[in-house]
């Protein structure tokens, strides 16, 4: 499938393209970008001892149970409620940029915005914080359970945002998608449905 080129620097896809339909999620292995219930781990608590609401997988960048990564610790980031931020901060995190004197600037680059999870009833949105990281055992994630399976389309945006945070690289979404397309297309061990653009 040809994807129309997008020169826009927008950080996020439309909200309805984030999550795989829960009815089909079983076809997708646990993978980078999936949101899990917070595992039982001493690092997954706030400085005040409150348990993180959710975690998002940031490493490995392939399937969690892939042979090459099956015994690797899983790097997860804290997922917070947007509602806990101040009102002006909420809007900026939801966009990932702010305008000051006609200059559009990157803002809160350590965050990745997410809409409500598929089975969530209260309609509240979330953000992952790339600065709050913990390595957990793969088994502990298995036990806590996946709450949202991120679509391939949204994972491309997550990869791009992480590159922006970790390396300060501003790469176009089309280039990141193309790299991901090539990676998936040439991976003989790729599991689960492939995106339409591969």
């Amino acid at each position, binding site marked *: 499938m040809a994807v129309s080129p*997008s*020169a*826009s*620097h*927008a*950080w*996020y*896809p*439309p*909200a309805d393209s984030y999550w795989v339909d829960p009815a089909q999620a079983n076809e997708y292995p646990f993978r*980078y970008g999936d949101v899990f219930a917070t595992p039982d781990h001493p690092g997954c608590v706030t400085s005040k001892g409150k348990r993180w609401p959710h975690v998002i997988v940031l*490493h*490995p*960048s*392939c399937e969690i149970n*892939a*042979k*090459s*990564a099956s015994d*690797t610790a899983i790097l997860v980031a804290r997922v917070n409620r*947007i509602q806990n931020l101040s*009102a002006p901060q*909420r*809007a900026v995190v*939801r*966009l*990932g*940029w702010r*305008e*000051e*004197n*006609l*200059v*559009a*600037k*990157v*803002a*809160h*680059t350590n965050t990745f*915005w997410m*809409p409500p999870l598929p089975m969530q009833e209260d309609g509240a*949105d979330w953000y992952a914080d790339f600065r709050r990281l913990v390595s957990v055992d793969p088994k502990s994630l298995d036990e806590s359970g996946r709450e949202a399976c991120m679509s391939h389309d949204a994972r491309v945006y997550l990869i791009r945002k992480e590159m922006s945070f970790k390396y*300060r*690289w*501003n*790469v*176009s979404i089309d*280039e*990141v998608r*193309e*790299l991901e397309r*090539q*990676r998936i297309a*040439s*991976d*003989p*061990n790729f599991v689960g449905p492939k995106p339409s653009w591969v």
Partner: protein
Amino acid sequence: MSDMVYNKFLVGTAEFRTQATSLKLRKLLNQHPVVSVARYRDETEAVVLAPKVFDSLVQDQEHLVEIKRTLPMLVAALQQGIAIPSDFLERMGITAGDDSWQALNAFQSRTPIYLSESENGARLTTAHLTPGEPLLYSDEELEELDEDELTNVGG
């Protein structure tokens, strides 16, 4: 600009005279910030305002003068396609209104945006990545590889 709407509290002239001591007047205005004094129901003689109401009216008047002075310039700028800083629009009382996640996500995913500065104000440059040959191993190759060589493989 103030969004407050005050209801006038009607007081007869004779009754107002009995309320017109400093203490009673303060109490009356605390309860009813706008008091209409009338000899008859349809004949207002005076409107007495609590200080906060008066201050807010003065502020609104000044704001209105600023809007009247700026509006032609604003319209001309829009017609020419000239961008207007958001803090200026906010000062003018013009805001997006809806900053729900639904509205902001729809806006940012449909409207092209070009970022020019990083978070710390550095000029934002665009990086281009050139994919090389992917480093992948088949299951058989993985089994043949020495454990040490696998240390950095994965994900």
